[in-house]
């Protein structure tokens, strides 16, 4: 069959339409390239396979960063969220994070509509079975029906689908997630093309019938109406539900411990490594024997459904055991399970095999994003998706890739961690991973990234002008505070005991033209200015190293003076800069010195 542009030949083919795939295909199509999105099930675009929520600690940051670059996730959750909260309001302003419960069905519908309305984007329901690689360059995929899709760039966002294997107790079956086919052939194609794969495990909770839950005695958690929307383009959100809190108890733990021999985790059936921060309930009970109870959040999945997600009860115990332990919990005495909890094992590509642009080092024009890179979470996936989409376009247009630094965005931290350190468990973003978290706040995501979004041609005019207006107001307020009464309030705001509330009390009438959001941002900026400049100095110092590039085709074997161990590690990781090389464990200062010297010649 002849290649026909727009039919079987595209600039970009994106495999997968989960949270990574959505951002990837929207980025490339919005930036003007003919894009195809291939998904195994068009009804599950943007499916929330686990928790029906967007945001959370450090994840809220990612969502706002995606939005500032021109992504869709923030807009989608603002429109389809049913409960919005700010976390850590008492802990400190730089680590405040936004979280929203989604109406998962409306979220999916919203995303499908956005994709259907995108120009340059073709949606295809099919499964990719193999990569087409010619001369070390990806140039399309072979579908399971045998047809070929050709492209300049391939982006893989296959999530948990690669040789996905679901476990419920000792029963298991092949699936990408409950209800969808696994992709059993693509892994082999990746291996054949020289990529190294690993195996991970994650899990989810049973879904409960809300009609059988007694909420009357449970603690209620309401949303916040003054929540600042995730997206620059939205002004308001609407809360329509509450969540409820309950706890496990000794009886729950007893039931779980008794049936541990039926857990695939504990009898060695599951080989993949699971996430430490999101352990199954059986893991928590075993590892923290002294803990008498574990907190459970009951979260409604949709206004159009009575299914509830009991957050904190991920499990792969047999269905019977799941029901037994659930019924020991307050409020769940008569509960019915609609869908069982399960664990899923899947293949991932060791992310150290990628460049900073998310392009594979070994295969040109192949980009990977999302869980295939060993991450976990919708937001982490979307963040990689948008970067892969952007950089696929940059590659095709022969422009420099967009690389965000660790000091510019959580997205930068995420990608830098993945490609330099790799990951042996599902990688989740934490604020503690960011060494410059005072700089990387949710409130300044637009200030940090909108210019990038605009420059690459992804951020729309509407969001960009809102950002410009906010920036202008912010600078105006800072200038005012610096001058008013000789900067008295500027200095006062630096003190820990003087808040923006105090400021409004004292000079409210002078600053009433500024929004509360602007005042808060300015207050925070002033309060942290000292610490931030300390961090900026450090960044400058490190930058000197960061920029020293190592020759792309450097043959480390031929460099005299390097130990065999160092050569091995350098060849394996292929660092692109001195800074990257110095992060590889086992690389000595002496080896770095030799690399520096060599570069000089």
């Amino acid at each position, binding site marked *: 069959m002849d290649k026909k542009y727009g039919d079987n030949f595209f600039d970009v083919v994106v495999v997968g339409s989960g949270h990574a795939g959505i951002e990837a295909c929207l980025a490339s199509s919005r930036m003007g390239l003919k894009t195809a999105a291939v998904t195994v099930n068009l009804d599950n675009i943007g499916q929330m396979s686990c*928790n029906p929520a967007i945001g959370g*600690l*450090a994840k809220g940051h990612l969502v706002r960063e995606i939005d500032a670059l021109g992504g869709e996730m923030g807009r989608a959750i603002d429109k389809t969220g049913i409960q919005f909260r700010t*976390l*850590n309001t008492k*802990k*400190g*302003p*730089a*680590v405040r*994070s936004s979280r929203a419960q989604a109406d998962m069905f409306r979220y999916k519908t919203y995303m499908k509509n956005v994709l259907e309305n995108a120009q340059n984007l073709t949606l295809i329901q099919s499964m990719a079975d193999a990569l087409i690689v010619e001369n070390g360059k990806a140039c399309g995929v072979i579908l399971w029906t045998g047809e070929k899709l050709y492209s300049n760039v391939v982006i893989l966002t296959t999530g948990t689908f690669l040789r996905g294997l679901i476990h419920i107790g000792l029963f298991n079956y092949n699936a990408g997630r409950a209800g969808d086919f696994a992709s059993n052939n693509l892994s082999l194609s990746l291996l054949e093309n020289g990529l190294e794969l690993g195996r991970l495990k994650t899990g989810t909770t049973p879904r409960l019938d809300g009609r059988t839950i007694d909420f009357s005695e449970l603690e209620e958690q309401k949303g916040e109406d003054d929540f600042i929307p995730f997206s620059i383009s939205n002004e308001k959100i609407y809360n329509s539900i509450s969540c409820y809190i309950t706890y496990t108890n000794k009886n729950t733990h007893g039931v779980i411990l008794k049936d541990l021999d039926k857990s695939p985790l504990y009898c060695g059936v599951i080989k993949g490594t699971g*996430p*430490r*921060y*999101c*352990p199954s309930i059986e*893991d*928590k009970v075993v*590892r*923290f024997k002294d*803990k008498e109870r*574990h*907190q459970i*959040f009951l979260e409604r999945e949709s206004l159009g459904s009575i299914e509830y997600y009991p*957050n*904190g009860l*991920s499990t792969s115990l047999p269905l019977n055991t799941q029901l037994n332990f659930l019924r020991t919990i307050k409020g769940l005495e008569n509960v019915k399970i609609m869908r069982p909890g399960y664990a899923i094992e899947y293949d991932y590509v060791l992310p150290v095999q990628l460049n900073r642009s998310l392009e594979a080092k070994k295969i040109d024009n192949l980009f990977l994003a999302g869980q295939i890179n060993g991450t976990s979470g919708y937001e982490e996936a979307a963040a990689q998706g948008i970067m892969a989409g952007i950089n696929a376009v940059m590659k095709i247009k022969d422009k420099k890739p967009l690389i965000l630094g660790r000091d510019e965005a959580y997205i930068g931290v995420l990608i830098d961690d993945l490609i330099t*350190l790799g990951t042996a468990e599902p990688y989740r973003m*934490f*604020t*503690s*991973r960011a*060494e410059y*978290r*005072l700089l990387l706040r949710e409130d300044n995501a637009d200030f940090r990234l909108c210019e990038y979004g605009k420059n690459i041609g992804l951020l729309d005019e509407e969001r960009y002008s809102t950002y410009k207006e906010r920036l202008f107001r912010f600078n105006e307020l800072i200038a005012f505070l610096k001058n008013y009464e000789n900067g008295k309030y500027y200095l006062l705001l630096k003190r*820990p005991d003087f808040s923006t509330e105090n400021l409004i009390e004292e000079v409210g009438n002078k600053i009433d033209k500024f929004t509360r959001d602007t005042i808060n941002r300015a207050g925070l900026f002033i309060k942290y200015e000292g*610490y931030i400049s300390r961090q900026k100095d450090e960044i400058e110092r490190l930058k000197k190293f960061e920029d020293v590039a190592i020759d792309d085709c450097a043959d480390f074997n031929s460099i*005299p*003076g390097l*130990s065999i*161990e160092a050569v091995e590690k350098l060849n394996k990781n292929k660092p692109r800069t001195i800074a990257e090389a110095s992060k590889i464990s086992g690389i*000595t*200062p*002496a080896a770095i*010195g*030799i690399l*520096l*010297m060599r570069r*000089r010649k």
Partner: protein
Amino acid sequence: MSAMSSLSREIDTICAVSSPSGEGAISIIRASGKDCLNILNKIFRPYEKNLSKIKSRYFYAGQIFDFQTASNIDEAACVFIKGPNSYTGEDMFEIYPHGGIFNTKYILEIILKSGARLALNGEFTKRAYLNNKINLLEAEAVLEIIKANSLKTLVIANNELGGLLEKKIKEIKESYIYILASVEALIDFPDEVFENIDSDLLNKAGEAEQALTYLIDSYKNYELNKAGFSVVIAGAPNAGKSNILNRITGKDRAIVSDVPGTTRDYIEENLFLFNKPVKIIDTAGLRETMELLESKGVERSYGQIKNSDAVLYILDINDLNEDKILKETFDMFEDKKDNLIPIVNKTDTVNKKDLDAAEEKVLQLFEFKNKPVFISAKTGSGFETMKKELYDVILRVEGGVKNDVGITTLRQKNLIVKSLELLSSAKDKFIAGRPLEIISLDLREGINALDEIVGEVTSEDVLDVLFKEFCIGK
């Protein structure tokens, strides 16, 4: 970049005479770098016939060959050690020629002409550090061992080299990381319930503060020890302390007179007692006085006693009534009791009968741990016994230092002080309810200061503790 120029030297081959300068039985010449084997093949002719090549870690006897004159010039042994399993991590060799001054120097010159260059001070150890064979602490320890002048300083430095100091610092770091992990848990898992996290955190901080303070204090001790074993001569005025100092040192160092209280300030003298470096300190006589200058001197005497390793307490044989001041001194320095030697002076002024009576009286009046020594500073009688007693005390004190761990350099001390300040600041802020991300910043910098002493920490370390210690996860 100046770092560059020094790094460019790291891969060439360095060489130096490692044995002390001067004539001896055998010299040691040492080399390290990639050309070692080439150089060795060029200058060394092993006796072993049919030797195809020099093997690593074998001891060879042979001749040193001077390629300039094409003649053998000395019989020597040598050993080649293949990197990276060598001290520096590079290829190394050592040559053991005869210990003459000329031949050693000449062999060194041949080696230098074969492509090596003269090593800078401490360069072998520096290479070991750069090649990750030893850490900075160990490198410093090597230097301190070379400079050690007493068993105590040697043991402390060797404990440092053996990793005991590193272990101690790592323990502190573990507490630190626990505290940081607690703070990060509170930040990153806002919906989790952590029981007792505040009090656990503060307890750990207290422990870490204590351990850091201990290390800071240990530096002071180490410095004192480096100055040698200190012996204080104390006692009532006019008991003859200065005379004793003068006789021990063989110098007229202290002014002596019959007027009690002639010595107003302390006087220090360094000497070798047999093979031990000892610092002897003569102090102002201990008595209650209204005179300002003298009372200052008395105050200092107590300070000297406090910091000393041993005390020679001088009594006047003609004035053996229960010494109130001695008793007070005893009470004040309970821990020094074992190391206090009573010295009864001026035996030349009494006859044999009075001497015997005095001996009995001393034993009756005071409960000394050590046997009193009777001397005469005037005639020198009893001095040898006194020195032997003192020597025994030194051996005993040094014998008890096996587990002494401490810091040994100012660099280490400054970093530990910095770390302690940051920890205390973090603790205060936590109690005051300041933002956790700021507290985390202090803690991270505090850990970095500890790391600068030893190795490195990654955020992965913090996460490890976080997941191990706290029940986390939704």
